[in-house]
């Protein structure tokens, strides 16, 4: 007999299921709009030129493979903090922060969740926007926290339910944890405007909430790293000591290298040191110390003026292509004769778009047109190219007219 007789088969990953079905489809016109990675205009993965250059430089140096410190590559973590906070940030310049290297966005979120579970004794509740990235819930749950929600997306308008969000947030019990997507909300693509962020910051401050920012798309959303970090920086300037998870999977195309960072804004540098020591105690029994390859690449890019400049151009070009596909999709829908309002497609930002399509319509898109997306009507705009945007518009029009 086996120890594992009672172990249940885990549920199939919904997004993986989309990709599997896509692979099996023989239709030459098929489109995979479930993919959560950037694709170029030929539908191919894109390795940034600045990444290739950084890799070549690193290879030439023939460095050793000695363990990184538990908190990661210092040049990387410092540059990562500066990228998020801004070089003129008082919090950054005063050193009243700690940034540890994390295993991309997930690992950074998890370190933070574990840290809050252990040291944030005021509440066990994490408030997520409705909807949020599917993995947020299990991450916080596995860390031992509880999940709550605040209104966010309005399916009637395919945009932000601002009054609903403000209403819910103003009622969150004091000293709870609230998670905010810094930019390019996943999965809806709906971001607050700056005036709306200001109001949210005021309420959050009034309720004395612990703010947890998830920033997985800095630079990738608008094409401007400063603009995409505006909310994070505004909150800090308002005196809110946030915690922050960053990912370099999308904005540097370093998906499989697992590059990320977790930051805690503290009262002062001395507190930051104490917090760092506790983060290390959490990290060591998880994986001891982080992988170096991606962090070295990211560090070289962020810290070398030439490579950094090149990176900013490349990340803008990725963002621009996405924005262009949104624009073309809408104009193609109009050309098809669609009478629906598709403005939300261009209002939304980032990799993902909540089309507003219903499950039956999504099913028709898949069955009749071999266009694959998740049941909630979310498409990855990264999977759209100038070569297939016409086909996509045609198909959407067919199922919605």
């Amino acid at each position, binding site marked *: 007999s086996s120890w594992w007789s009672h172990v249940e088969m885990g549920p199939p990953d919904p997004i993986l299921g989309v990709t599997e079905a896509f692979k099996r489809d023989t239709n030459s016109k098929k489109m995979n709009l479930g993919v959560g990675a950037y694709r170029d205009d030929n539908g191919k993965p894109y390795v940034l030129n600045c990444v290739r250059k950084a890799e070549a430089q690193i290879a030439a140096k023939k460095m050793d493979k000695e363990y990184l410190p538990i908190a990661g590559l210092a040049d990387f973590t410092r540059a990562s903090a500066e990228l998020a906070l801004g070089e003129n940030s008082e919090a950054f310049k005063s050193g009243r922060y700690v940034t540890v290297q994390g295993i991309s966005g*997930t690992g950074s979120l998890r370190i933070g969740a574990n840290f809050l579970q252990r040291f944030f004794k005021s509440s066990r509740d994490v408030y997520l926007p409705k909807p949020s990235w599917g993995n947020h819930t299990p991450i916080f749950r596995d860390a031992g926290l509880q999940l709550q929600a605040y209104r966010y997306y309005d399916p009637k308008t395919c945009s932000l339910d601002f009054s609903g969000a403000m209403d819910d947030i103003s009622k969150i019990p004091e000293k709870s944890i609230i998670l905010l997507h810094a930019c390019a909300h996943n999965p809806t693509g709906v971001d607050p405007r700056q005036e709306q962020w200001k109001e949210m910051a005021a309420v959050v401050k009034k309720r004395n909430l612990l703010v947890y920012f998830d920033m997985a798309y800095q630079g990738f959303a608008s094409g401007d790293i400063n603009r995409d970090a505006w909310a994070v920086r505004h909150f800090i300037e308002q005196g809110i000591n946030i915690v922050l998870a960053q990912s370099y999977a999308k904005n540097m195309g370093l998906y*499989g290298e697992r590059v990320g960072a977790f930051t805690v804004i503290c009262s002062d540098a001395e507190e930051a040191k104490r917090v760092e020591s506790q983060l290390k105690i959490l990290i060591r*029994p*998880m994986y001891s110390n982080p992988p170096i390859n991606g962090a070295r690449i990211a560090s070289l890019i962020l810290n070398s003026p030439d490579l950094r400049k090149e990176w900013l151009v490349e990340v803008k070009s990725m963002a621009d292509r996405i924005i262009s596909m949104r624009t073309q999709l809408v104009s193609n829908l109009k050309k098809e004769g669609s009478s629906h309002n598709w403005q939300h497609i261009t209002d939304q930002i980032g990799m993902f778009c909540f089309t507003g399509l219903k499950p039956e319509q999504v099913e028709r898109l898949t069955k009749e047109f071999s266009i694959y997306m998740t049941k909630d009507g979310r498409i990855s705009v990264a999977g759209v190219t100038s070569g297939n945007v016409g086909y996509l518009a045609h198909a959407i029009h067919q199922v919605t007219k």
Partner: protein
Amino acid sequence: LAAYRTDEGQPWVLPVVRKVEQVIAADGSLNHEYLPILGLPEFRASASRIALGDGSPAISENRIGSVQSLGGTGALRIGAEFLRRWYNGNNNTATPVYISSPSWENHNAVFVDAGFKDIRTYHYWDAAKRGLDLHGLLEDMEKAPEFSIFILHACAHNPTGTDPTPDEWKQIAAVMKRRFLFPFFDSAYQGFASGNLDKDAWAVRYFVSEGFELFCAQSFSKNFGLYNERVGNLTVVGKDADSVKRVLSQMEKIVRTTWSNPPSQGARIVATTLTSPQLFAEWKDNVKTMADRVLLMRSELRSRLESLGTPGTWNHITDQIGMFSFTGLNPKQVEYMIKEKHIYLMASGRINMCGLTTKNLDYVAKSIHEAVTKIQ
């Protein structure tokens, strides 16, 4: 953290690793896309094969699974998280976990943070005889509650360097089988200990041949010198393919909330090496180079101490294996070594054999001699 050093006292990137890195760098078809949640398939299969052996019945019977992990630590943690959720009931945090006394200092925290509430030690090091306390170990296993989890060092026990002999392993396995104890192997030094991959995997393979369901956390940090790339693998051996499939599906859920999917660089290097006959042969050679140097330092240190007539017996230096050695020096003697001779050991008397070189052997031997004769 301990890492291999050359005879010049320098870190050593294995020549085969440099070669493979260049191959990877030159391969324009490679990109940085996500790996699957459980890792690079070629890595997982070849890594488990290294532990279990090509001819393993578990492999031919399709009842093994692999989870690419962030180093040996990551493999231990995923295994621990799984056991806490699914072993001996559902979420049974009360299942005792036994860790050797002494052990790698991070073992404890891995299982505590995974949620286990009852962490115990089992007798291992016999300070008086400077060897394995087999009697104490077996007694602890007899007394342990049924279904307890035992963390076993596959080879090159850290920190004592003292491994059970094959015969002693057989006795351990017999008790564990009779008392339904779960073997969780920590294999961080395969190849690095004796210089021979199969020899260093003997214990794991014996347990498999005895029909155990077990976990084996593998690290490629030392034997591939890939410390900072975080290359590890959790090998799962089950009774049948279906249970392994279900186990892996649940491990996927655990991985997804810990790191989503593992880093690709190190796994690519290992997979490329292990799946090419030529590179595999080169790697084995590199591993033997490291193991042989450590073995040489052991025999040289022992012979010097014996020539000096240092009081006590010193055969334990060569009986022990791997990176570390429990010298038997007491805390006062260790303090002397550190303060007066600037030789850094742990308070336990543990020495890192990789720190020895042909240039410093005489000095270290003389210092040990002084410490033992001057300080009691």
